């Protein structure tokens, strides 16, 4: 991954809607060949940023540069971006081939090249021989792959994806993530991905931007975001997190960082409220003096535990936040 010059530079971007919603103070450099994910709950502004990158909305302030060229006020058709939408991506009255060829024809690509490039692209998408099919003859996952292919054929500087897998079944969604990672690595494309699914963000991204009410709450690799969340908001949004109050501070720790002792050697104590088996590990809910916390323990350790038992526990890793942070 090159890090020298950013592929996309977003500076002081703001888009404020008449009702006051929108995004503010967005500063972000997107590097060539990375998958960066905008993650947040609905209404946090992640799609707004993506649509601003694609040119589908006019920004209120700030600037966007792609490949060092300012594109802030260019319409979508003049930007080197490719967009994949949540659904209804493909033009239903055109075959796969016509869908893929449309943009190339607009660019006056010779017919022979178009045919060859479509064949190559379908090969990469693992959908060879589907040229003559109509979108409604393909499954949802196949349609999204064709939509990705259609964008990639035009060799965009950056591929924008707006929750592209959220309309798919859970199983297909997993496959599509892997497919996207493979394609991205094969072609070394730059991807901006929007999702509200933290698991999707963690598994796909090189970097994640966690959004909170129109602002960037934290930018970092999945590991950084998971291990060192910058605020309690990020901590509670990504993965599971327990919170304990201590004076003016909040202690935060992951359920997997709790170790339970039955011999009374732990620093803190509590009573087991419930034990839930979740496959190779179990989720244990512990009632402490003033709150309940959750602990994940390996399955074999649950043999010694039972509901109603008084135990003690230690915290292996601990984060502290000022109140209100």
């Amino acid at each position, binding site marked *: 991954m090159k890090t020298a010059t950013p592929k996309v530079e977003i500076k002081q971007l703001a888009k404020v809607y008449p009702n006051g919603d929108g995004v503010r103070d967005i500063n972000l450099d997107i590097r060539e060949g990375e998958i960066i994910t905008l993650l947040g709950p609905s209404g946090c502004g992640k799609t707004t940023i993506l649509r601003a990158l694609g040119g589908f909305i006019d920004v209120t302030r700030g600037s966007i540069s792609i490949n060092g060229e300012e594109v802030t006020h260019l319409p979508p058709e003049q930007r080197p971006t490719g*967009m994949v939408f949540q659904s*209804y*991506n493909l*033009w239903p009255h055109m075959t796969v081939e016509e869908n893929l060829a449309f943009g190339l024809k607009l660019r006056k690509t010779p017919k022979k090249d178009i045919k060859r490039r479509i064949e190559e692209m379908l090969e990469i998408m693992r959908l060879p021989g589907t040229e003559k099919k109509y979108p*409604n003859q393909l499954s949802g996952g196949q349609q999204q792959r064709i939509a990705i292919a*259609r964008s990639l054929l*035009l060799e965009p500087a950056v591929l924008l994806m707006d929750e592209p897998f959220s309309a798919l079944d859970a199983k297909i969604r997993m496959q599509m993530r892997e497919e996207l990672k493979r394609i991205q690595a094969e072609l070394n494309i730059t991807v901006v991905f929007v999702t509200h699914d933290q698991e999707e963000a963690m598994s796909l991204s090189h970097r994640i931007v966690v959004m909170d009410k129109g602002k960037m709450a934290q930018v970092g690799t999945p590991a950084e975001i998971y291990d060192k969340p910058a605020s309690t908001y990020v901590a509670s949004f990504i993965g599971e997190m327990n919170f304990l109050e201590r004076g003016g501070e909040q202690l935060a720790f992951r359920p997997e960082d709790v170790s339970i002792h039955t011999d009374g050697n732990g620093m803190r104590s509590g009573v087991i409220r419930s034990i839930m088996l979740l496959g190779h590990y179990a989720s244990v809910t512990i009632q402490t003096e003033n709150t309940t916390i959750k602990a994940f323990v390996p399955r074999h350790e649950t043999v010694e535990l039972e509901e109603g038992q008084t135990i003690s526990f230690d915290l292996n890793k601990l984060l502290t936040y000022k109140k209100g942070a």
Partner: protein
Amino acid sequence: MSSQKLKKWTPYLLTAPSLLVVVLFVIYPILNSVFRSFQNKETGGFTLEHYQYFLTDPLQQSNILYTLKIVLWTVLITLVFSYLLALYLRFSGSRLSKWMGMLTLLPRFIPGLVAVYAVILVIRDSGVINRLGMLVGQEWQLGWMFNEKGIILMNIWFNIPFSTLIIFASLSGIQQSIIESAKDVGASKWQIFRSMILPLSYKDALVAVTFTFMGNVGSFTTPFLMGGNSPKMLGIALYDQFNSYMDYERAAALSVLMFLICSLSAVVYIYSNLKEKEWEKRA
């Protein structure tokens, strides 16, 4: 009756009243008219003379051509206007377009006769337009009354709202992401229209055309109040045969002819609907 038997007959019992009404008031009169149109008045024998009259008599020929001319112009102008209007209503988010969307429906709430008189008051040679001209010292006389121009104007007035409604519904069915993805790959407005919007909506536009066509072949109120003495639209010619000459055989023949003209567009409509394209089939 056993419950088994009752179950079997229930659908027939439920549909019987409406079936009866249809047979009595639709099927029977149609068959009767068709039968009568081939009947000699005196002898009651088979004849083609009534059809011959309408197809060879110069006056009746000009009536048919006059009607077709008015209907085709009405269809064409209505289609263009309502398509443009529907495009504007669908793709402009402005407040004006919302107001226009509501105004579009207004003519549907005005009784036909009232509307015709209102328009006559505006366009006749001593009408509102003429008076406005006099204010600026001009003598504006449109000359639209008692010929096809007034009738076409009135037909457009009546048909644009409905036609727009159909086309607008069709355009609303086109997902925004279809348009946006076309923009994204670099299509201009014209290219988006030609390659996306038109192919996805022309069938419904054809439906609007068919309805406009059929609705105007037999129109009566407008040509009765705004048309001249000759040529006449077929609706008026039919009225003459039925009410003035009381020639029921000729009236029947003319009815069948009008029905045939209407069915021309019905054929187009049915054909385009039967010819379901590959992409429209559900997988």
